[in-house]
């Protein structure tokens, strides 16, 4: 197919998922496999005085029991992949993160011991026989109080529970601008902690082959090569080429499956001790307790404006919870991925942001869909809309006065936007959402006793992570390129090996479209292989909406190499000069003639090189490219949410949600819109339903099951109006930007701005997320003008 790009082709991967023939990690069974069960801490903070595993070791079916003491000196702590340097030039505090607790437990769910047995029941029965003597310590739960004097210390390495205090921007210039301001909008915001909850729980199956002295690990990972690198080089000290990591079908990630977790690390190590395969699959309860959580910011944000509503400066102070240990990319999320986005779509000339990252006795916090960018968008878009209402300027108008319209644009917080068209997405969203008719709808709703509100969110994100040298200068301890290999077989069929990983994104279709268009062949003739370190040269994996922009470009580069070589083969076959060969529609043609040779014929010649320039060209048609991007990409768009509140119950109903996004060039609109839908559901979930709660005293997780934590269900959500605008990215060959996180980034502010709009006349200026019926109802009851709204 020559026009595969831009088509909504149904997905190639669907058949196996629809017929139950996909293979997720827990579906893999190996002969002789054992089962692991992790004994977890019931306390948020306690010293381990003693662990008695004697009875467990002799329990029926038990092969081995290991505790932190067994790993001491043999297994290193889990590393953090991003070094943040604090305001005083000091490196962040990096306390050890032992895979099994050593000396102390630091959150409810911290793994204390692993029992490995013939059956899972055997393992669980034995775990009950483990006696742990805990000396309980006060728990540090509230991030805002973690640094207060007298608060218990979680790690000796960080006596004040502070990992770093980091800043970006020119504080003096910002303060000076605030002194000049005609108006200052202020908000105190909490970005609620979320629990990712991919529907497939994490799982791992590790085995050791004594004959080859090699390990194989099946694991639910978004980035198997990163997993292998961290585990082999940093934690277990294994030779990298002796560890094969396979991420087969993975049932959703949303960031939570990026990280190197204790469980798979322990399993890999233990598989050699017991010389049998070991499987572990998390129960949902364990996912709640021990998957890395997301968000959890406490922020004071201020926006200074001049008389005309032009933004002069923004000042932001954020306290970010990191949880009990530094997870793999935890340190970068509330800094590099957050504060650099505070310019939003606006020309704000000065921005200062200070971030205090603290340890708390809770599950580790790391990237969750959007990772820092939803938090930034929430700050910017809530502030902008609050300022608009305070100044009685229409929210869209205030945004227009401050939009960046000239590109490239250097923000005061490090990023340089290459391109964008914010007016286009705003105008289209307003048209689709029928903003013009809103005041009428509001009046009609009021006549029915309902409060209607309309809120905007004009978000921006930085995707396509990332230029490795820039990331390195900011503290990244890894490269952020991607690898792709394009193998043309003798018949002209193609296998593509990519370091990106699909766990729902549909790469097997999208990447096939890219390659099919390149070669002028059918998408059915292109197979995408991902998720196996033994089959794929290298890879950095999938997160930060980077797959098409970085992984896709690597594939394009490899395909270009294939075409360049194929042209030389074609020139030989056609007895023409290399320079005279053109390639289009799957045919190599001598320019200006009708003499051509088909792609498949060239491929055959490459493998059956009888008539072939062997003196100057190797046989075969298989090329690899590593692509390191030159800049981030900057997807942006406008989301508009219209809600209706029943003041009698406090229930908020979304009546209309419009998202107009600019992801640059779109390869498969159907898949892209699906990504938007899913992101919106998570963003709306954050705004209205989801909120992780720990008991403030004990640090017990109160939202530890799907009965306590409100994951959005089908009847909680509306259908969405999604449209796309295309302003191509200027620095990659496909013109793509990435789309996976936009919904989760834009939606929370749009929803909360809509709620604030509905309640503004009652004197309500802000509500915390999630805006549950109870929260809204209470706010209305206690609002200055709330009485009038009660029905």
């Amino acid at each position, binding site marked *: 197919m020559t026009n595969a790009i831009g088509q909504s082709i149904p997905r190639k991967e669907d058949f196996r998922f629809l*017929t139950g023939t996909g293979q997720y990690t827990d579906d893999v069974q190996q002969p002789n496999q054992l089962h692991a069960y992790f004994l977890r801490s019931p306390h948020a903070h306690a010293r381990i005085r003693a662990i008695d595993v004697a009875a467990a070791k002799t329990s029926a079916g038990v092969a081995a029991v290991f505790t932190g003491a067994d790993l001491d000196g043999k297994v290193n702590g889990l590393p953090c992949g991003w070094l943040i340097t604090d305001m005083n030039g000091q490196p962040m505090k990096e306390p050890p993160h032992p895979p099994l607790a050593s000396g102390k437990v630091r959150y409810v769910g911290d793994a204390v011991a692993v029992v490995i047995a013939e059956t899972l029941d055997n393992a669980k029965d034995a775990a009950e026989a483990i006696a742990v003597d805990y000396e309980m310590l006060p728990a540090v739960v509230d991030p805002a109080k973690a640094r207060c004097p007298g608060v218990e210390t979680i790690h000796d390495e960080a006596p004040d529970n502070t990992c770093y205090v980091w800043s970006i921007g020119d504080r003096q210039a910002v303060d000076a601008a605030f002194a000049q301001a005609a108006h200052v909008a202020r908000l105190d915001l909490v970005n609620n902690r979320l629990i990712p909850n991919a529907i497939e729980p994490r799982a791992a199956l590790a085995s050791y082959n004594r004959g080859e002295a090699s390990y194989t690990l099946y694991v639910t990972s978004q980035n198997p090569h990163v997993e292998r690198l961290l585990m082999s080089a940093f934690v277990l000290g294994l030779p990298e080429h002796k560890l094969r990591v396979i991420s087969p079908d993975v049932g959703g990630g949303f960031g939570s499956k990026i990280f190197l977790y204790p469980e798979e690390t322990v399993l890999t190590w233990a598989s050699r001790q017991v010389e049998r395969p070991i499987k572990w699959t998390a129960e949902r309860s364990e996912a709640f307790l021990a998957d890395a959580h997301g968000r959890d910011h406490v922020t004071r944000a201020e926006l200074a404006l001049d008389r005309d509503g032009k933004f002069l400066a923004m000042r932001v102070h954020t306290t970010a919870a990191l949880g009990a240990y530094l997870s793999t990319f935890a340190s970068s999320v509330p800094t590099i991925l957050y504060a650099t986005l505070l310019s939003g779509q606006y020309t704000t000339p000065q921005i200062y942001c200070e971030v205090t990252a603290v340890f708390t006795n809770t599950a580790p916090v790391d990237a969750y869909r959007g990772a820092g960018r939803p938090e930034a968008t929430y700050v910017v878009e809530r502030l902008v809309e609050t300022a608009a209402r305070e100044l009685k300027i229409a929210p869209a108008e205030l945004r227009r006065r401050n939009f960046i319209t000239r590109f490239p644009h250097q923000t005061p917080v490090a990023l340089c936007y290459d391109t964008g068209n914010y007016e286009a997405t705003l105008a289209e969203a307003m048209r689709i959402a029928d903003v013009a008719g809103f005041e009428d709808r509001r009046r009609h709703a009021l006549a029915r006793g309902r409060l209607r509100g309309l809120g905007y969110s004009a978000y921006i994100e930085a995707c396509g992570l990332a230029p490795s040298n820039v990331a390195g200068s900011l503290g990244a301890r890894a490269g952020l390129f991607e690898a792709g290999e394009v193998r043309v077989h003798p018949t002209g069929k193609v296998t593509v090996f990519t370091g990106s990983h699909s766990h729902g994104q549909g790469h097997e279709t999208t990447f096939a479209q890219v390659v099919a268009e390149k070669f002028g062949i059918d998408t059915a003739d292109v197979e995408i292989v991902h998720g196996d370190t033994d089959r794929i040269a290298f890879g950095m994996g999938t997160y930060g909406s980077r797959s098409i922009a970085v992984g896709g470009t690597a594939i394009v580069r490899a395909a270009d190499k294939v075409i360049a070589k194929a042209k030389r083969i074609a020139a030989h076959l056609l007895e023409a000069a290399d320079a005279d060969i053109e390639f289009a529609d799957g045919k190599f043609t001598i320019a200006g003639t009708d003499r051509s040779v088909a792609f498949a014929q060239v491929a055959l010649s490459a493998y059956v090189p009888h008539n072939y320039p062997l003196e100057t060209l190797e046989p075969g048609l298989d090329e690899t490219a590593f692509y390191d991007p030159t800049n981030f990409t900057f997807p942006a768009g406008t989301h508009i949410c219209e809600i209706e509140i029943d003041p009698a119950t406090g229930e908020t109903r979304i009546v209309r949600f419009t998202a107009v996004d600019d992801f640059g060039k779109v390869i498969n609109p159907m898949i892209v819109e699906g990504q938007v839908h899913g992101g919106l559901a998570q963003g709306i979930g954050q705004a209205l339903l989801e909120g992780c709660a720990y008991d403030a005293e004990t640090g017990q997780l109160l939202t530890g099951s799907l009965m306590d934590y409100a*994951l959005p269900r089908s009847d909680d959500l509306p259908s969405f109006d999604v449209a796309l605008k295309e302003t191509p990215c200027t620095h990659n060959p496909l013109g793509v930007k990435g789309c996976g996180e936009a919904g989760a980034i834009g939606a929370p502010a749009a929803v909360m701005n809509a709620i604030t709009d509905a309640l503004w006349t009652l004197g309500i200026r802000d509500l915390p997320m999630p805006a549950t019926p109870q929260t809204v109802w209470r706010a209305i009851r206690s609002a200055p003008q709330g009485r009038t709204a009660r029905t």
Partner: protein
Amino acid sequence: MASSRSTHTPASAGGTTLPSRSGRSTGGEAGDAARAAAQAPVMACSHLSLNVNGMPVSTEIEPRLLLVQLLRERLHLTGTHVGCDTGQCGACTVHMNGRAVKSCTLLALQAQGAEVTTIEGIAPAGGGLHPMQAAFHEHHGLQCGFCTPGMVMNAIDLVRTQPNLTEADVRSGLDGNLCRCTGYHNIVKAVLAGAGAMKGQS
């Protein structure tokens, strides 16, 4: 400073109640039965006969074995998934005697003599797709695919039991099946289309 000597599995540490053995906490009678079975000191094996996807199955099982474990671990029908331990997610939905059930909330013994159909058993012989499977494909009603088998099985039951489905019916009918990927938008579209196709077929 308080001291505690913990000698049991803190599976309920999250403030939730879970049986500490493999029985998954569930609501209703099946859950009670599962708990009772999980606490039985000696696991005598029981005989179980049923049909799965039209094939007779006859086997000895521990009474505490759940239907979903029988399907996944014994019969290697791994299309039926486990997404939770509280009967909330619906990833394990199969048909028992023609009706959708959450197979994590049933003991395998409760399927004694039953006709059980899983996602592997609904497509017509010869490699095609059931109209509901086809509708999910056509309308991009799946992303990671993990919730998909349960969604499809529940959707088929929904169409069979509710003749004139509206969007609101679909949304309330699927509220026992969680999807974290799609935002349900395309699932709803797919189920409505699949309903039409199933009608056209019957």
